[in-house]
Protein backbone atom coordinates (compact mmCIF):
# COMPACT_ATOMS: atom_id res chain seq x y z
CA UNK A 1 0.00 0.00 0.00
CA UNK A 2 1.44 3.37 -1.03
CA UNK A 3 1.65 6.33 1.34
CA UNK A 4 -1.23 8.76 0.85
CA UNK A 5 -0.33 11.74 -1.33
CA UNK A 6 -1.10 15.27 -0.15
CA UNK A 7 -3.97 16.63 -2.18
CA UNK A 8 -5.47 20.09 -2.63
CA UNK A 9 -8.91 18.95 -3.70
CA UNK A 10 -10.86 15.75 -4.15
CA UNK A 11 -13.67 14.85 -6.50
CA UNK A 12 -15.76 11.69 -6.40
CA UNK A 13 -17.08 11.26 -9.94
CA UNK A 14 -18.89 8.02 -9.03
CA UNK A 15 -19.70 5.92 -12.09
CA UNK A 16 -19.44 8.84 -14.52
CA UNK A 17 -17.33 7.93 -17.56
CA UNK A 18 -16.27 8.65 -21.11
CA UNK A 19 -16.76 12.19 -22.43
CA UNK A 20 -18.68 13.52 -19.45
CA UNK A 21 -15.97 12.41 -17.02
CA UNK A 22 -13.04 14.02 -18.83
CA UNK A 23 -15.03 17.17 -19.64
CA UNK A 24 -15.92 17.76 -15.99
CA UNK A 25 -12.41 16.78 -14.94
CA UNK A 26 -11.00 19.42 -17.28
CA UNK A 27 -13.30 22.06 -15.79
CA UNK A 28 -12.27 21.08 -12.25
CA UNK A 29 -8.56 21.27 -12.99
CA UNK A 30 -8.96 24.53 -14.87
CA UNK A 31 -10.32 26.09 -11.68
CA UNK A 32 -7.35 24.91 -9.60
CA UNK A 33 -3.95 26.52 -9.14
CA UNK A 34 -1.01 25.29 -11.26
CA UNK A 35 0.81 22.30 -9.68
CA UNK A 36 -2.01 21.64 -7.25
CA UNK A 37 -3.16 18.04 -6.90
CA UNK A 38 -6.65 16.64 -7.39
CA UNK A 39 -7.66 13.25 -6.07
CA UNK A 40 -10.20 11.86 -8.52
CA UNK A 41 -12.35 8.85 -7.69
CA UNK A 42 -13.89 7.30 -10.80
CA UNK A 43 -15.28 3.77 -10.86
CA UNK A 44 -16.04 3.67 -14.59
CA UNK A 45 -14.64 0.59 -16.32
CA UNK A 46 -12.90 2.75 -18.90
CA UNK A 47 -11.17 5.01 -16.40
CA UNK A 48 -7.97 2.93 -16.02
CA UNK A 49 -7.24 3.56 -19.70
CA UNK A 50 -8.96 6.91 -20.15
CA UNK A 51 -7.43 8.90 -17.34
CA UNK A 52 -3.79 8.15 -18.29
CA UNK A 53 -4.59 8.85 -21.96
CA UNK A 54 -6.31 12.12 -21.09
CA UNK A 55 -3.35 13.22 -18.95
CA UNK A 56 -0.90 12.43 -21.75
CA UNK A 57 -2.96 14.50 -24.19
CA UNK A 58 -3.56 17.48 -21.93
CA UNK A 59 -0.19 17.73 -20.21
CA UNK A 60 -1.45 17.22 -16.66
CA UNK A 61 0.62 14.79 -14.59
CA UNK A 62 -0.85 11.54 -13.38
CA UNK A 63 1.06 11.10 -10.12
CA UNK A 64 -0.57 7.85 -9.14
CA UNK A 65 -3.31 5.57 -10.45
CA UNK A 66 -4.87 2.96 -8.19
CA UNK A 67 -8.28 2.40 -9.70
CA UNK A 68 -10.69 3.91 -8.77
CA UNK A 69 -8.37 6.60 -7.34
CA UNK A 70 -6.28 8.91 -9.52
CA UNK A 71 -3.95 11.67 -8.30
CA UNK A 72 -3.55 14.36 -10.94
CA UNK A 73 -1.25 17.36 -10.73
CA UNK A 74 -2.47 20.35 -12.68
CA UNK A 75 -0.05 21.56 -15.34
CA UNK A 76 1.69 24.92 -15.05
CA UNK A 77 -0.36 26.84 -17.57
Amino acid at each position, binding site marked *: MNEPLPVDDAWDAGSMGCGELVFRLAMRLRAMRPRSVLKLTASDLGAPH*DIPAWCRMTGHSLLRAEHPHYYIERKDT
Partner: protein
Amino acid sequence: MPGKLCVSITHAKNDPDKATVGFVVANASVASAQETLVFLSTEAVRIAVKGYAEEIHEEGFAPLKELVSNFVTAGGRIYVCSPCIKKRGLGDEPLIEGATIVGGAKLVEFLAAGAACISY
Protein backbone atom coordinates in the same frame (compact mmCIF):
# COMPACT_ATOMS: atom_id res chain seq x y z
CA MET B 1 6.53 3.43 -41.93
CA PRO B 2 3.28 1.96 -40.56
CA GLY B 3 0.18 4.11 -40.51
CA LYS B 4 -2.66 4.02 -38.03
CA LEU B 5 -6.16 2.88 -38.91
CA CYS B 6 -9.28 2.77 -36.77
CA VAL B 7 -12.19 0.59 -37.88
CA SER B 8 -15.33 1.74 -36.11
CA ILE B 9 -18.06 -0.92 -35.88
CA THR B 10 -21.55 -0.17 -34.57
CA HIS B 11 -23.43 -3.35 -35.46
CA ALA B 12 -23.61 -6.93 -34.22
CA LYS B 13 -26.41 -9.47 -34.80
CA ASN B 14 -28.67 -6.59 -35.86
CA ASP B 15 -26.52 -6.31 -39.02
CA PRO B 16 -24.05 -9.21 -39.21
CA ASP B 17 -22.96 -8.11 -42.70
CA LYS B 18 -21.55 -4.82 -41.39
CA ALA B 19 -20.09 -6.41 -38.26
CA THR B 20 -18.31 -9.00 -40.39
CA VAL B 21 -17.05 -6.67 -43.10
CA GLY B 22 -15.65 -4.34 -40.45
CA PHE B 23 -13.43 -7.13 -39.18
CA VAL B 24 -12.52 -8.21 -42.71
CA VAL B 25 -11.18 -4.71 -43.37
CA ALA B 26 -9.46 -4.64 -39.97
CA ASN B 27 -7.70 -7.88 -40.85
CA ALA B 28 -6.63 -6.45 -44.21
CA SER B 29 -5.19 -3.47 -42.36
CA VAL B 30 -3.29 -5.41 -39.70
CA ALA B 31 -2.00 -7.79 -42.37
CA SER B 32 -0.69 -4.75 -44.24
CA ALA B 33 1.52 -3.83 -41.29
CA GLN B 34 -0.73 -0.97 -40.16
CA GLU B 35 -1.28 -0.22 -36.48
CA THR B 36 -4.93 -1.19 -36.35
CA LEU B 37 -7.65 -0.54 -33.81
CA VAL B 38 -11.22 -1.81 -33.89
CA PHE B 39 -13.55 0.43 -31.93
CA LEU B 40 -16.76 -1.33 -30.90
CA SER B 41 -19.59 1.00 -29.89
CA THR B 42 -23.40 0.95 -29.55
CA GLU B 43 -24.70 -2.54 -30.54
CA ALA B 44 -21.24 -3.76 -31.56
CA VAL B 45 -20.04 -3.95 -27.95
CA ARG B 46 -21.84 -7.31 -27.80
CA ILE B 47 -19.12 -8.74 -30.08
CA ALA B 48 -16.61 -8.25 -27.26
CA VAL B 49 -18.56 -10.54 -24.92
CA LYS B 50 -17.07 -14.03 -24.88
CA GLY B 51 -19.18 -16.46 -26.92
CA TYR B 52 -21.35 -13.89 -28.72
CA ALA B 53 -19.41 -13.84 -32.00
CA GLU B 54 -19.69 -17.63 -32.32
CA GLU B 55 -23.26 -17.21 -33.48
CA ILE B 56 -22.43 -14.90 -36.39
CA HIS B 57 -21.43 -16.37 -39.74
CA GLU B 58 -22.35 -14.13 -42.64
CA GLU B 59 -22.65 -15.88 -45.99
CA GLY B 60 -19.62 -15.33 -48.19
CA PHE B 61 -17.26 -14.58 -45.29
CA ALA B 62 -15.34 -16.47 -42.64
CA PRO B 63 -17.13 -16.86 -39.29
CA LEU B 64 -16.89 -13.71 -37.18
CA LYS B 65 -15.22 -15.58 -34.33
CA GLU B 66 -12.39 -16.59 -36.68
CA LEU B 67 -12.02 -13.06 -38.03
CA VAL B 68 -11.83 -11.60 -34.51
CA SER B 69 -9.38 -14.24 -33.34
CA ASN B 70 -7.13 -13.74 -36.38
CA PHE B 71 -7.19 -9.98 -35.86
CA VAL B 72 -6.07 -10.20 -32.23
CA THR B 73 -3.45 -12.85 -32.97
CA ALA B 74 -1.99 -10.59 -35.66
CA GLY B 75 -1.57 -7.77 -33.14
CA GLY B 76 -4.78 -5.81 -33.63
CA ARG B 77 -6.36 -4.06 -30.68
CA ILE B 78 -10.04 -3.85 -29.77
CA TYR B 79 -11.47 -0.96 -27.77
CA VAL B 80 -14.95 -1.35 -26.32
CA CYS B 81 -17.05 1.74 -25.59
CA SER B 82 -17.48 1.96 -21.84
CA PRO B 83 -20.89 3.69 -21.61
CA CYS B 84 -22.26 1.47 -24.43
CA ILE B 85 -21.41 -1.80 -22.67
CA LYS B 86 -22.53 -0.45 -19.31
CA LYS B 87 -25.88 0.66 -20.75
CA ARG B 88 -26.51 -2.88 -22.01
CA GLY B 89 -25.76 -4.45 -18.64
CA LEU B 90 -22.73 -6.32 -20.01
CA GLY B 91 -19.99 -4.58 -18.05
CA ASP B 92 -19.30 -7.57 -15.81
CA GLU B 93 -19.36 -10.21 -18.56
CA PRO B 94 -16.08 -11.91 -19.51
CA LEU B 95 -14.60 -10.34 -22.63
CA ILE B 96 -12.76 -11.89 -25.56
CA GLU B 97 -8.99 -11.77 -25.64
CA GLY B 98 -7.61 -8.46 -26.85
CA ALA B 99 -10.68 -6.41 -25.90
CA THR B 100 -10.30 -3.45 -23.57
CA ILE B 101 -13.09 -1.30 -22.19
CA VAL B 102 -12.24 2.36 -22.71
CA GLY B 103 -13.91 5.74 -22.69
CA GLY B 104 -13.66 8.54 -25.21
CA ALA B 105 -10.25 9.85 -24.18
CA LYS B 106 -8.43 6.65 -25.10
CA LEU B 107 -10.04 6.61 -28.55
CA VAL B 108 -9.36 10.31 -29.09
CA GLU B 109 -5.69 9.78 -28.23
CA PHE B 110 -5.39 7.15 -30.96
CA LEU B 111 -7.26 9.22 -33.57
CA ALA B 112 -5.50 12.47 -32.72
CA ALA B 113 -2.16 10.82 -33.40
CA GLY B 114 -3.04 10.84 -37.09
CA ALA B 115 -5.16 7.71 -37.52
CA ALA B 116 -7.56 7.35 -40.41
CA CYS B 117 -10.97 5.94 -39.56
CA ILE B 118 -13.54 3.89 -41.48
CA SER B 119 -16.98 3.12 -40.08
CA TYR B 120 -19.36 0.17 -40.38
